[in-house]
Each structure stands twice: as C-alpha cells, then as structure tokens.
C-alpha cells in the first residue's frame, strides 16, 4: 500500500515536472492551437487558443497520469479495488497539481509585477502566462489547474479499472476477427502470391500519377522525403547492416553535392558538365571518399568510429566554409545555378520532373539495397555487426566488407546530395551541418536498424510529418532527441524491425546419396 502510494507520488512528480517544462518551452500553447486546428477552428496569428483546448490537452496528460498509477507492476492481483485506484489517482493528481499550483503562483506573480520574463525564458510571454492561468489571478488560475489535475487523474484511474476488466473481452474479439479473416476470402487474398505483384503495380501507378496532381508544394516536401529515403538506405547499410556507427554521414552528402555542383555550376570553375555525367561523377567521388576515409579508420570500433566520423564531417563542413578554400568552393556563399537534368535536349526543371527523377533514384536504391541485403554480402555484414571477431575467424574478410558498406553507403549519400543540389540549384556549407547526419541516423533507428521498409517509414515519419505539422517545427529536434532515448529504452529494434528470411531447405526423407547415417547426435531433438 505504502509503496504503491510512493509510486503514485513519483509518477505525479514526473508529470508535474514534464507539464511545467512544457509550459516553459511554450509547448502548451502550440499543442492547444494544434488541437483547435484539428477541430477546424484555427487560431489567429496574434491571438491565443481557447481555454477549452488547453484543458483538453492537459486533460489527456492528467488522465494518463491517473491511468498509469491505477495499476502497477507490484500488484499481484490484476483486480485492484476501485477505492485503492481512486486513492492512487488522487495522490498522483494532487502531486502534479501542486507543481502546477506553485508554477502558477511564481510565474503569475512575477508577471503581475510587469516583469517581462522573455528576457530570460524566451517562450514565456505575458500572454502565454495568462493563458496558463485562464486569465485569472495567479492564485485562482493555479487552483483551477490544481483541481483539474486531481480530478482528471482520478477519472483516469477509474477508467483504467474498466479498461483492465475489458481487456480479456477485447482480446477474444481480436482473435475471432483474425480467425474470421483467415477463413474468409481475405485469408485467400493474403496467401495468394499474385497479390504482392498487384500491390506493387498499384504503388507504381500511384507514383506515376500522384506527382502530377498534388502541386509544387507537396512535390517539394515529398522530394525531400525521397532524398532522405536515399540517405537512410545508405546509412542503413553502414549502421544497420554492417554495424559501423558513422556519425559524419553528412560528409558524403556534402561531397556528392559539392562535386556535382562544382562540375556543373558556371561559377567558379565553369565546367558545365552534362547532368548525367555529373551525377555519375558525384556518386563515384562519394564512394571513393568513403573508401579513402574507411581505409585508416575502419579498424576502430563502435563509439570511437562514431566520434572520428563526426569529427570528419565537421572538418569537411568547416573546410567548405573556410576562406582557405574560397577560390575553390566559394566559401560560405555556396554554389549557385547548379544544372538541372536534361534528356534528349529537353530540360527537366519542373517540380514534377524532379519528383519523377527522385522516385526513380529511390526505386533504384531500394532495388540495390534489397539485393545486397539478401545476399552473401548482407549476411557477412550482419555477421560483422553482431560479432566482428568471430565473423572474421569464420572467414569473413571484415575489412573488405566494411569498406564495401562504407562505399555503397557513401554512394547513396552522394546520389542524394547531387539530386539535392540540383533540385535546389544551390548548395552551401549550411546544407551540410551535423544535424543532417543526426536526422538520417534518427530515421534509420526509428524505422528499425537493418530494415528497408523501416527506412521508408522512418523518412516519412521524421521528414514528412514535421513538414505537415509546421507549428511543431521548433520542437522537432527536441522530440527527436527524446524519441531516440525512448526508442532505445522501449523498442530498440525500431518501428518496423528487420525480419530474417526463411532459407532452410527441408531435406527430403532419407536419400541414398546423401548422408544416410542417423543424425549423429541429438537425434531425438
């Protein structure tokens, strides 16, 4: 009993700290306006969202608070009495509420004195403080927050009771549904081998039709997603398959973009190569740089490799930016007027054309990645990632395979970089900051290391979603960071984990020419 209440208090403290933090970074306002946008009542630029939307958002958090404490691991019996649950919920809610009350009093009082808190805490405008206090005095606003927290947490705790008792029912319904779908025509469809071909056909058709329909804005966003799929596939080979943690992946992206730009842009070298030749050059130069960098450093393991490659990425960026190479790369100004593709004399510069180009590149990369992964090479990489020493002793030329992984990964990045530069008709040092590496690493990990569908999913989730939820722009990296930690703790294998193929060839019952001796050991297994 005592420990369960302690648990509730602890949970309440966590929720209290989190909500105060969200208030301090201005997230409460953003979340409330997002909610309002979702119900079709967008907030004006200068005005604050309604109090109701704030209550809804906080309400969810408080319900969760109560829900979590309502039932905990220490309970031997799942059937915790309602009274205990209410008590737990109340404890947690009151604890959280106390945090909110204190916060309201402190911030509200300072605000009432007319001090502009934004000097110190940039998101804490007077408006947003009033919003938190429901335009009441600090004490009244704080008490409303306090009461709401306690009440909602109790409701959450009670709800959890019903959910717990309803769990078995839900499970049995699920089972019945699965059984039904297997029996009915759905089951036949699922096992039919042609279904996947039909699906692929539909997807291809969509990829052809959709870019014509949805306009330049969406083509731009989806093009970015496509380029990140390319990058993700490349890094997935390096990190996900061969297990080499490379943090300076952006270096290859930069090398691809710059080598493409330098041979096509009119300034500073005026080489003006053809797009396709330049593309090949960019890919080759990137792959080569991957090999050259790999030669000395691939002997290092894990975290050392990570830091060295991170340093390498930074070196490339600083050099591109420096005055030292200014004559060669134009320094911080970057390169402009980079060529677009031409085919049979026709210029491809429209967003639709570029979308098709990116789609083609992604399909090609998917094809290659898929084939390498399901081959002797992919298996060698996996073996290296799991136990390098043993992989080598088993006969895997680890050095060669690691170099190969780096080269292929770098080539993908080079392709992505070249397309990126060509589409934007510009590339500069600020396109190649460390954050690109981190973003790509995030999408690979969130999607699931070593999983190709995971990469695609991750690219959409991490590059596509934030574009759609523009309001969250400034919170994106914050969420990424938290997401990485949470993923590592709860689901290190990612959203769409890699699966191993079934390969065993079932041996036919005793044949004369193969081994007829009964299995020498453990015949009974």
């Amino acid at each position: 009993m005592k420990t369960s209440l302690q648990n509730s208090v602890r949970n309440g403290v966590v929720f209290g700290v989190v909500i105060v933090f969200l208030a301090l970074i201005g997230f409460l306002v953003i979340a409330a306006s997002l909610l309002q946008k979702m119900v079709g009542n967008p907030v004006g630029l200068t005005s604050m969202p309604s109090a109701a939307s704030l209550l809804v958002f906080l309400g969810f958090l408080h319900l969760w608070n109560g829900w979590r404490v309502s039932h905990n691991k220490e309970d031997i019996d799942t059937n915790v009495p309602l009274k205990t649950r209410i008590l737990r919920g109340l404890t947690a809610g009151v604890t959280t509420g106390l945090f909110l009350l204190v916060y309201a009093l402190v911030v509200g009082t300072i605000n009432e004195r007319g001090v502009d808190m934004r000097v110190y805490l940039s998101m804490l405008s007077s408006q947003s403080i009033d919003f938190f206090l429901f335009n009441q005095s600090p004490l009244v606003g704080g008490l409303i927050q306090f009461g709401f927290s306690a009440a909602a947490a109790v409701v959450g705790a009670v709800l959890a009771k019903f959910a717990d008792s309803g769990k078995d029912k839900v499970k049995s319904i699920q089972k019945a549904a699965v059984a039904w779908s297997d029996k009915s025509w759905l089951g036949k469809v699922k096992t039919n081998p042609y279904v996947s071909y039909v699906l692929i056909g539909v997807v291809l058709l969509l990829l052809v039709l959709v870019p014509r329909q949805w306009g330049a804005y969406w083509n731009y966003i989806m093009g970015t997603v496509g380029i990140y799929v390319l990058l993700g596939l490349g890094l997935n080979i390096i990190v996900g398959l061969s297990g080499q943690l490379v943090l300076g992946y952006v270096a290859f992206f930069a090398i691809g973009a710059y080598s493409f730009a330098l041979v096509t842009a009119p300034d500073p070298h005026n080489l003006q190569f053809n797009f396709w030749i330049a593309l090949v050059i960019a890919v080759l130069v990137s792959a080569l740089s991957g090999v050259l960098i790999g030669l000395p450093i691939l002997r290092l393991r894990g975290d050392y490799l990570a830091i060295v490659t991170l340093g390498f990425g930074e070196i490339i960026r600083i050099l591109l930016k420096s005055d030292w190479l200014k004559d060669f790369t134009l320094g911080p100004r970057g390169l402009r007027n980079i060529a677009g593709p031409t085919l049979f004399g026709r210029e491809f510069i429209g967003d639709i054309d570029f979308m098709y180009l990116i789609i083609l590149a992604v399909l090609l990369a998917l094809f290659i990645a898929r084939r390498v992964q399901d081959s002797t090479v992919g298996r060698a990489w996996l073996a290296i990632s799991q136990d390098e020493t043993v992989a080598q002793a088993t006969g895997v030329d680890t050095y060669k395979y690691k170099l190969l992984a780096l080269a292929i990964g770098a080539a993908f990045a080079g392709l992505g970089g070249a397309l990126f530069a060509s589409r934007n008709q510009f590339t500069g040092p600020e396109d190649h900051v460390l954050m690109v590496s981190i973003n790509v690493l995030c999408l690979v990990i969130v999607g699931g290391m070593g999983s190709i569908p995971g990469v695609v999913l991750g690219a959409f989730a991490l590059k596509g979603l934030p574009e759609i939820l523009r309001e969250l722009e400034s919170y994106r990296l914050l969420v990424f960071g938290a997401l990485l930690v949470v993923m590592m703790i709860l689901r290190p294998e990612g959203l769409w984990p890699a699966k191993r193929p079934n390969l065993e060839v079932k041996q036919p019952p005793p044949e004369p020419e193969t081994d007829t001796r009964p299995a020498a050991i453990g015949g009974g297994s």
Partner: protein
Amino acid sequence: MEGTKRKRSLTLPQNKSGLFRLIAAVVVFALLFWRVGAVATVSQFGADTWLRLAVSGLILGGMYALIAIGYTLVYGILFMINFAHGEVMMIGAFGGYFVFEAFNAIPVTSADGTTLSLLNSYPILAVFLAFLVGMSIAALAGFLLEKIAYRPLRGAPRLVPLISAIGASIFLQNAGQLLFGPQRREYINPDLLTRGTGWEIPIGESSVMLTYTGVFSLVLSAILMIGLFVLVQRTKLGKAMRAVAQDKSTAALMGVDVDKVISQTFVISGLLAGAAGVMWGIHNQLINYFTGFLPGIKAFTAAVLGGIGNIPGAMIGGLFLGIVESVGPAALGIDFQLKDVIAFSILILVLIFRPSGILGEALAEEKV
C-alpha cells in the same frame, strides 16, 4: 583487455590497414614538419605573441581538462561515451549566468551612500554562489541523465546507450534553445573580474597580459583537478569507483553498490563540467544553448588524447589540446578559422595511430 597489448616491433605491419596507417603516418608527419619549419623561418610573430597564444591555450585547456575528466570517469566505468556531457556543461554555464543576473539586478546602498549592485558589493559571494549553483545544477543534470537515459540500458549492446546519449544531447540542446532562446547571452562579471584586465608581464619591448579571469579559471581548475585526484585515490568512494571500473560484478560481490557508484560518478563529472561551464562564461563572456557542444567534443578529444579512462591523461590531454588549438593555427600558418579542424584532425590522427592515447591502455583496439 588481454590481447590488446601488442608488442611493437620494427617489422612492417602485415595487414592492409596497418600498412596504410604507416604510410599515412609518415606522410602526415613529413607534411607537419615541413609546414611548421616553413612558417617558423618566415614568421612575423615575436616571442610575446607565442607566449600570449600559449597562455590563452593553457586557460582554455584547463576548461577542456575539467570536461574531459567527466568523459574519462564515465568511460572508465561504463565503457560508453557520455555524448551529452557537453550539454551538462552548458547547463552549468546557465546556472552561473542566472546567479550573476540576479545579483546584478539587486541594488545595495552602502553606508557611504553610493549605490552598487549586489554583484559588486559582494563579488566573492556572487562568484562563490555562481559556482555553487552552476555546479549543483550540472551535477543534477548528470544524475538525472544517467538515471533516465542510461540506467535502463545497462547491459544492452554498446551502440544502444550511445544512441541514447546522442538523443539526450539533442534533447538538452534544444530544450536549452527553447527555454533560453537562440541568442547569445552576456555573462555579467563582477568588476573584480572585468574581462581584458590583468597583470602586465613585460617581454622585451612588448608585454603579455595575464587576465584576471584567465588566471582565476586556471587556478580554480587546478584546484578542482587536485581535489578530484585526491578523491579518486584517497577516499572510500574513489576506491569503490576504481573497483567498479575494474570489474562491476566482482565489485558488487564485494559489497559495493554499483548503481550508487555509477550515479556518484555522474554527479562528480557533472560538478566538474558545471564548474567548467561557469568558467567558460566568466572568461569567454558569451554563452548560448550551443555553448557546450564544441567544448564537449573537444574535451572528448582531449580524453582520448590522454588515454580514455585515465584521469591524469585527461588532464594532460586537455591542456595539450588547448595549447595546440591556440598555437596551432599560427604555427602552421593557417587561418584561425580552421582551429576546429586542427582539433578534429588531432582526434582522428590519435585514434588512427595511437588509439591508446598518451597514457592509456589500448581500449579502441581489437578485443578477442
């Protein structure tokens, strides 16, 4: 760790990688000597300039050393790079900043009628409190970091906690940006520690200034480092830390509370990083949410340089890196812009040619 000590012989390395390393080493050193030699013969700098650069490098190095110790302590015990350690330093810097701001905002009228801010009436108290708050907040951050982001991952494959650490680093940086805004903030020093003032030491015709802030930082970091050394070598906690670093399970069997020792290690690293953060603010004036990132990576370089896991190594590595970074661009005759390139290049070269660092054991090398 057996297998790692390989006798160095004069025979040529037998594998490809080793051969490339050898060639690269020769090339790098030849280039380095040629460049330094070329610059030295036509150098426009006098002795005073070199000394000035060296002194400022030493001061910077002291801060690197304090942060580097944090990396080394954690690495020694958990075999992980605490990637978010630079952010812990940033948090410490902000802790000190707010103390100075608060002191500066309160006016005090003294007996003779002049009105001074509290900061200048009680400068020593202000500095003391700034360090106290900065160090405690950083220590708290380190403690929570370990508890939330690393402890649940103990025993996981090595990449997992590293990724978690990267995540924590991104989170803290952006939390800092959202809370305090992206702009740089100016540390308000008490008049006692006004930047740009100090003792003039005449050198020939010119002179070199030892700034008050610099000397203060250097002395304080020396004191903290000695304190840490005593703590690790002489106290029970230090003994427990060394035991856990050697072998966690055996230490646990001997009655050492491993979790507690690890927590305390993070607290100690946080204290040192926090102190470095406040010094950074006092000496370098401007801080923002990104303040911790580069010093963090460079301090890690320093830790590797000295041999990661080795405390005196981290100190030496930090001082060395600070001086190289400061003197290097001039000695190589390149743009000062490229000082970060020098730091990173040193990291890469050290890891390639001597992964064990100056004083350390070969941890980066192959293990069986």
